[in-house]
């Protein structure tokens, strides 16, 4: 019963935050609504006993990502309200709403109209991978009750290569951000101005 109440409250916060992101005319308000939505998702993670992921959700999403958004909003000075009554493309909102409803119907149809999930599917999904290598690993150790232990077991045995690839990805993203935002000197900018490309 407590679980249901917690779920209902956090679902309301998540969906309310999502509405805030979509409907608010001010980018800062949208970013704050986004924080509310992320915190609701973190509460749902706690409810499912994924404590580490809840922590990471708050720190990475609620902290780093939203702060980055707010930083960019303030840096560029685009914290102006925009007029949402003006529709740039005629009929776009109706079409977007229809597409959203169709995707929702597609997902819910797949969820409720598909056949009963047999045990075979569940076993195939959660089955242990067959390891033929010389190194005997114990992935997905069911004895470890702790969420962090199990996650670390899985991350550093079965997914070690992917974990290292994410390190490479983050390095590339950092270097890419620096290259994209770096000021290349005034002449590059002048060439791109319309009407001034004379040389």
């Amino acid at each position, binding site marked *: 019963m407590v*679980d*249901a109440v917690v*779920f209902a409250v956090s679902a309301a916060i998540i*969906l309310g935050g*999502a*509405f805030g*992101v*979509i409907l608010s005319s001010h*980018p800062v308000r*949208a*970013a704050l609504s*986004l924080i509310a*939505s992320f915190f609701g*998702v973190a509460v*749902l993670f706690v409810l*499912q006993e*994924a404590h580490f*992921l809840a922590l*990471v*959700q708050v720190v*990475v*999403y609620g902290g*780093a*990502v939203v702060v*980055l*958004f707010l930083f*960019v909003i303030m840096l*560029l000075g685009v914290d*102006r309200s*925009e007029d949402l009554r003006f529709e*740039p*493309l005629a009929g776009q*909102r109706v079409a*977007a*709403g229809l*597409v*959203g409803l169709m*995707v*929702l119907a597609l*997902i*819910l149809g797949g*969820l409720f109209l598909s056949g009963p999930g047999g045990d075979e599917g569940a076993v195939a*999904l*959660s089955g242990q991978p067959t390891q033929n290598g010389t190194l005997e690993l114990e992935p*997905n150790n069911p004895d470890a009750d702790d*969420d962090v232990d*199990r*996650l670390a*077991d*899985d*991350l550093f045995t*079965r997914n070690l290569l992917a974990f290292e690839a*994410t390190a490479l990805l*983050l390095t590339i*993203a950092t270097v*890419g*951000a620096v290259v*994209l*935002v770096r000021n290349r000197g005034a002449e590059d900018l002048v060439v*791109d101005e319309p009407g001034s490309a004379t040389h």
Partner: protein
Amino acid sequence: MEVTETWYLVLSALLFSMGLVGLLVRRNPLIMFMCVELMLNAVNITFVAFAGALDDIAGRTAVFFVLVVAAAEVVVGLSLVVALLRRRPSVSVDDLTALKG
């Protein structure tokens, strides 16, 4: 009343659809990025729900990777937005037609 994984999946479907509608409707690139984050969060809810239902930690590992990739995506995307808006102080993606054929 017990919270089953179906509840989480329905909530995730709702959140994903709302993020999609926001991505299609809004023309501010920053808010479009926020809507992408909403959709990624919807997928994360699904991953954790299935990880709990099937008692398989792989779903939670997938959430971990989604988090990392989302952080990288935000870094690159926002630096693109900064590079674009610094040159042309417009807040609408409809005006970014430099690559139009």
